[in-house]
């Protein structure tokens, strides 16, 4: 029984409440409404209503610094967006970060999990070192790694120099700055992936491997034919949330480079924040937010479809 089976809306369990449901004599439907109500109310208040407000505002030209009242302009904000080079650049940066850090975190997480799965005598130091990166607040991680990558006082260059290479001025170059940001994000998120994968690894019964040994399959083949397939469901769930978070990347580039040099490391979430809170262009900022939402929804839909067809 998996989470995914629910998503297939399969009626895989017994239907109907037992005859002795005495709690207000409610049927499944009514009870369901009551149980889901708190979640629904919270979501409506915190997400749905603000999103609708945002969507509404996106059809207006509303810039607080213009001193003019809001003016209905239909889709003008969206057409301005299409001609805005910064919009394209930040969207591209966001997509690139997603494409790099999601598989990156997966691979590194997989490696870490495999290492962590070795029979250690004492488990807790290993677990702690997987959990600490995840528990560290994003903004702090950004600050710390910005200092690590400092060209003069940073640890990274210190190590490079000791190894005989030349130090790099990380934040002088768009590519190196981007690399620094991706490295930081991968470091931070791979530990959560590792946790999930480790959990999955530890539920695979030994007997499967023993049977494979008997059949003469090598370690590598066992990995690809036993381990990976059985890990798939955990990996998929982790990937969904990781991808959504990657599209929303804000804290780390904000703290590390502020989007620089130029706008080469700025993300869509940063651009939205800048337009809304700094430039006070609420109309345009709302339109950008709606586009980001649409982007995330598309990605989620793709994932959900991929899960469905697999089952």
């Amino acid at each position, binding site marked *: *029984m*998996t*989470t995914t089976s629910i998503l297939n*809306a399969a*009626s895989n369990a017994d239907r109907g*409440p037992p005859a002795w*449901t*005495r709690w207000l004599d409610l049927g*499944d439907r009514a009870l369901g409404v009551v*149980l*889901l109500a*708190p979640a629904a109310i*919270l*979501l409506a*208040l*915190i*997400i749905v209503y*603000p*999103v609708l407000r*945002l969507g509404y505002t996106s059809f207006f030209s509303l810039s607080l610094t213009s001193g003019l009242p809001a003016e209905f302009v239909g889709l003008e904000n969206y057409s301005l967006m299409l001609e805005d080079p910064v919009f394209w650049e930040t969207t591209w940066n966001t997509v690139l970060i997603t494409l790099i850090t999601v598989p990156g975190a997966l691979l590194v997480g997989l490696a*870490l999990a495999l*290492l962590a*799965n*070795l*029979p250690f005598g004492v*488990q807790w130091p290993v677990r*702690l*070192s997987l*959990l*600490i*990166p995840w528990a*560290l*607040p994003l903004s702090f991680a950004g600050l*710390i790694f910005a*200092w690590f990558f400092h060209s*003069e*006082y940073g*640890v990274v260059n210190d190590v490079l120099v000791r190894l005989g290479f030349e130090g790099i001025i990380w934040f002088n170059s768009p590519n190196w700055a981007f690399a620094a940001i991706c490295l930081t994000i991968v470091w931070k998120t791979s530990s959560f992936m590792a946790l999930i994968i*480790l*959990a*999955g690894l*530890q*539920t695979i*019964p*030994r007997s499967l*491997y023993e049977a494979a040994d008997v059949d003469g399959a090598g*370690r590598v083949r066992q990995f690809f034919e036993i*381990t990976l397939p*059985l890990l798939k*469901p*955990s990996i998929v*769930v982790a990937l969904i949330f990781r991808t*959504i978070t990657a*599209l929303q990347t*804000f*804290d780390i580039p904000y703290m590390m480079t502020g989007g620089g040099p130029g706008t080469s490391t700025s993300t869509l*979430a940063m651009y939205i924040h800048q337009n*809304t809170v700094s430039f006070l262009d609420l109309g345009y900022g709302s339109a950008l*937010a709606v586009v980001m939402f649409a982007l995330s929804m598309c990605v989620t839909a793709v994932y*959900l479809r991929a899960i469905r067809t697999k089952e």
Partner: protein
Amino acid sequence: MSAVAAPGLSGLLSGRPLRFLAGAVLIVNGMFPALWILFTSLKTEAELTAKPITWVPHAPTLANYMQAFSDQPLHLFLFNSFMVALLSTCLTLLVSVLAAYALARLDLRYRGLILSLIIAVSTFPLVTLLVPLFEIMRTLNLLNTWVALVLPYTVLSLPVCTLMLVSFFEGIPRDLENAAMIDGCTRLGALFKVVVPLCAPGVFTAGILAFVNAWDEFLLALSFNSNPALRTLPVGIQLYQGEFAFPWPVISAALVVGIVPVAVLIVIFQERVVSGLTAGGIKG
């Protein structure tokens, strides 16, 4: 927790020294920044910009910690963060347990749709909802209260926790609840007396997830709780930074103080967390 399997590596990397190496890699990777902050918090300002850079402080000092507590009301930040995180964790668990139960047990027509919706709304970054949310909190007169933060933080963790708990609940056979109800329990009673305790690892995991999410959040805390008596830790730590100055040693000390509670919680619950992710959590 089920027996440690032996996939992939341990055949290649058997033996003590290689296990030691693996352990070292893991610990360095995970703990390095935390250790670095720890070392920095023991250094003086001058040592920080000395060249060549020093790793371990030459003359460790606790002065930064004293300053961290005297420059800002760090204990107050800790208290506020703790209360907000605790309250939102409780609320998150309550709401997601109820919702997960509904989705796992009841025959609802739109189960798949509802779950997809719950995931979908988490795709909206709170960063972009800042201004509308602030207006809502202001209208409800909730600014500068813990509740103003507890509500959004609950929503932040709701999707992940619900998803996790759904798969846990599905793993519990219905007969157990039915037995409880024969004995005179109400449906909700069975939920809380039978199902939840059996899913304790999952509940703990969801709880830690919610707690950490709430502990780490910065932007909303900055905007909603401007009253100095109600500031949370991430916001408070920003205050050590001056218009021009960035006192790394003092900030590091504050960071250490901020991470320690979470780390302690993690060490205490790590057994449960990993077993939570293991036992029936998100598996095949």
